[in-house]
């Protein structure tokens, strides 16, 4: 075999083997990854709706809501996903909302690509806990009613904006004081 044919054959073998290895790895890993994603979703719902042990999924006006229930079947609130524009890309979060009280019950950042050590601090409880018990009619303006992080102003603003935009829709579907 001359050297050019050999080059092509070797590259071809490498590419095919790599494709096979990747396909098999994907097949093996993807059910586990999805299972993990489901677990993470459940954990985040329980986190933003304290006291919840199970949840029901409801689709309404193009949005997905997770209604949290405790062991006795009492409704503990509604969790929904919100997206804000951060510094490094979209920030996805799970927000807990209690329509009876008109208050947020919790916030968890699901995914983000903010600067480690700066904007990434939005996922720490020191930042997210300030939204617990916050009234949904608040203005959600950074530096006014939302604490920011030193060195990162865009990331907290993205979170606050994302929640506000989602709440505008959600409070129309599930008004404060109304039934759900």
């Amino acid at each position: 075999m001359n050297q050019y044919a050999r080059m092509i054959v070797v590259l071809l073998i490498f590419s095919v083997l790599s494709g096979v290895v990747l396909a098999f790895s994907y097949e093996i890993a993807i059910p586990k990854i999805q299972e993990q994603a489901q677990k993470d979703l459940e954990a985040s719902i329980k986190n933003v709706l304290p006291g919840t042990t199970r949840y029901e999924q409801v689709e309404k006006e193009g949005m997905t809501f997770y209604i949290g229930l405790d062991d006795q079947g009492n409704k503990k609130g509604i969790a929904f996903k919100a997206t804000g524009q951060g510094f490094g890309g979209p920030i996805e979060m799970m927000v807990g909302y209690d329509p009876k009280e008109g208050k947020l019950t919790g916030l968890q950042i699901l995914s983000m690509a903010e600067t480690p050590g700066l904007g990434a601090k939005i996922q720490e409880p020191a930042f997210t806990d300030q939204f617990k018990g916050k009234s949904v009619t608040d203005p959600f303006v950074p530096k006014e009613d939302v604490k920011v992080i030193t060195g990162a102003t865009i990331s907290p603003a993205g979170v606050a904006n994302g929640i506000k935009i989602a709440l505008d829709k959600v409070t129309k579907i599930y008004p404060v004081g109304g039934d759900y």
Partner: protein
Amino acid sequence: MYQLVKDFLNGLWNENPTFRMIIGMCPTLAVTTAAMNGIAMGLAATFVLVFSSLLISLLRNFIPAKVRIPCYIIVIATFVTVVDLFMAGYFPAMYRILGLFIPLIVVNCIIMARAEAFASKVTPIRAIADALGMGIGFTWAITLIGAVRELMGSGTVFGYHVLGENATRWVIMLLPPGAFLTMGILLGIMNVITRKSVKNTQCH
């Protein structure tokens, strides 16, 4: 055996990828805002480096010289993707810390450099010794940079408060310029230490 120890120690100091060869600067400058990030990135890169060096060393007589670079890239990229998939599925806790850094390893030129300059020329066992040394050398170097930046920028090291809650924080140390400042100063210190030791051997 002596050769193996020498190959291993090489990466720790004499040819330290970060402070001596100045390669792999992209992850070094980008992720070192905290000491923990340094350890995470370093270990993930070491893992990939060891296995890609082993594979490339095993295949060194099979790969034609003219297409060696595409072959290395295929091996490294495949390996990184497999690690990424399995870690996401089976070690979610670890993935939460390392997940952000794993795709970055594909473009870490330490791995390409060791494949090209070392692993493709020696036996698999020597390639592994070298990869381990280089990986650990990279890990300690970026952890040190991370620790300095975290200390000055956040007042903590590995998340523990060292400077007290009210110490002034130099936010610039956490921003990109801080990476260059820290890197430059540490590099200068490294050079001073090395120069001294060279002078001493000449005296004796």
